């Protein structure tokens, strides 16, 4: 194979490289300060101190209290804990759970499992931009609704859901109810990228992940508002306030906290910078490549997300052509790339199966530069052109 000069990463929504400062913060906790945070001796104390400090840092970025942060191993685990934990702790008063139709598989599959356990699930539809229908949500609430779980930002098309509005509505609704309806949001894609304030947004539970924000893999969190009735899914040594037993992964959590702190400090600057790059990229694609379309909303989307489709070609083939040019992007979502089903997100936004097959997701990050975008546009033009030459559905 030809040697390539380029190796550009445009898949930051899948995962991110660990920030060097986060890595440096983690390193002492592998071999030197290796203690178990539950131990009573000095080694344990050292680890406990690092854990408490990390919890404090992370809580601050969400405007939460430290004891409201439960560390887990992944966003998938956090979502499982939120849904199953609320469902089982509150099943005596109701069995109805509401989610959106474009949630991440870790929400959708968990609710499918809960359905098998006797819970009732309603999926709220979204419009063509992937924005949830607030009216429908309000009308779907029943006497036995115990939980509403709506993602903060979609992982495929980057659409930002009206979390604050939902929170406000549920708060008003709850003031008239004996037992509250809990509100969970999966913020795996938005945490560290756009502002989140759990108090202002009236969120009861929130999922966030480390490896999406330049922290290591293997750490995530579930914010659980004080006073929330939740059942643990892992039982054992009562770690994390008894909500999540497991020896605590101190190095990863220290890295997570450092990464979150850096993202918080750089957020304002990065939002402006990335929106500029994003909008330039969208504009260039739509104006220079014929029959190209943007999926999702032109403005109400994550600063780092671009999802586009090109008539007459298939997304996977395009991603492999780009791979040969030294560019890494993904089709729909990375989790789905070995799956042949068209993306449920794009289908629920009203796209036809053949349209959703031709979509790709480009996600930028803090190491993406203007010149990278230029190279990407050139490569896209070339790759799309080559594939259209082969396609039976492309007429010049």
């Amino acid at each position, binding site marked *: 194979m030809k*040697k*390539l000069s380029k190796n550009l990463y445009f898949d930051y929504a899948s995962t991110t490289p660990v920030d060097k400062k986060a890595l440096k913060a983690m390193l002492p906790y592998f071999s030197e300060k290796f203690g178990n945070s539950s131990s009573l001796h000095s080694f344990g104390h050292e680890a406990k101190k690092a854990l408490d400090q990390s919890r404090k840092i992370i809580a601050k970025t969400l405007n939460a209290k430290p004891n409201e942060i439960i560390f887990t191993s992944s966003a998938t685990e956090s979502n499982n804990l939120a849904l199953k934990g609320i469902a089982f702790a509150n099943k005596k008063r109701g069995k109805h759970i509401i989610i959106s139709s474009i949630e991440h598989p870790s929400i959708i599959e968990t609710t499918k499992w809960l359905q098998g356990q006797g819970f009732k699930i309603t999926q709220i539809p979204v419009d063509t931009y992937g924005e949830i229908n607030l009216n429908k949500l309000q009308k779907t609430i029943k006497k036995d609704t115990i939980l509403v779980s709506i993602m903060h930002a979609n992982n495929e098309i980057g659409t930002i859901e009206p979390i604050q509005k939902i929170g406000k509505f549920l708060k008003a609704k709850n003031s008239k109810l004996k037992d509250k309806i809990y509100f969970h949001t999966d913020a795996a894609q938005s945490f560290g990228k756009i502002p989140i304030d759990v108090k202002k947004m009236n969120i009861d539970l929130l999922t966030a992940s480390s490896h999406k924000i330049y922290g290591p893999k293997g750490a995530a969190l579930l914010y659980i508002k004080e006073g929330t009735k939740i059942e643990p899914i892992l039982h054992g040594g009562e770690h994390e306030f008894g909500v999540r037993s497991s020896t605590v992964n101190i190095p990863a959590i220290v890295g997570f906290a450092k990464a979150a702190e850096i993202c918080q400090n750089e957020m304002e600057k990065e939002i402006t910078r990335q929106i500029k790059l994003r909008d330039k990229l969208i504009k260039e694609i739509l104006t220079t490549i014929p029959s190209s379309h943007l999926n999702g909303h032109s403005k109400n989307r994550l600063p780092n997300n671009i999802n586009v489709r090109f008539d007459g070609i*298939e997304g*996977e*083939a395009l991603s492999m052509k780009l*791979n040969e040019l030294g560019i890494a992007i993904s089709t729909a979502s990375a989790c789905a790339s070995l799956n042949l089903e068209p993306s449920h997100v794009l289908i629920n936004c009203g796209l*036809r*199966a053949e349209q959703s097959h031709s979509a790709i997701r480009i996600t930028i990050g803090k190491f993406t530069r203007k010149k990278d975008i230029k190279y990407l546009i050139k490569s896209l033009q070339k790759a799309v052109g080559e594939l259209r*030459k082969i396609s039976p*559905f492309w007429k010049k």
Partner: protein
Amino acid sequence: MKQKNIYSKQIMNYFSHPKNVGVMKKYDGVGKVGNPVCGDVLWLYIKVGKNKKGEEIIADAKFQTLGCVVAIANSSLLTELIIGKPIKEVEKITQEDLIKKLGKVPPIKIHCSFLALDALKEAINDYQNKKTKNNRRAVRRS
């Protein structure tokens, strides 16, 4: 840096440098298979000739594919395999023959390689049908 992915060298070679791509204006048979809803569509054109022994052979073939890496690689491979070969022989090509030449095909993608053989069958059928019709016409005229 070398760009690696889940596909074999052979598949990536066919995918990157596909042979016999395009439309054939004067074809003897065409096979149009697949469904855009599933993500893969393949159009295969064939031109039929005769060899020295007087057997019917695939004199030329061209394809157009909307589809994934495996679908495109397999289309190219098939055209290379059939050009110049007697129809009788071409009809014996199996799925396994193609997969062997492609190297390792990820299990979830094996079905993408069915398309090319389906298209070949249809193209040959199309040719045979036309031939029978023409023969009948010729008989009627005489």
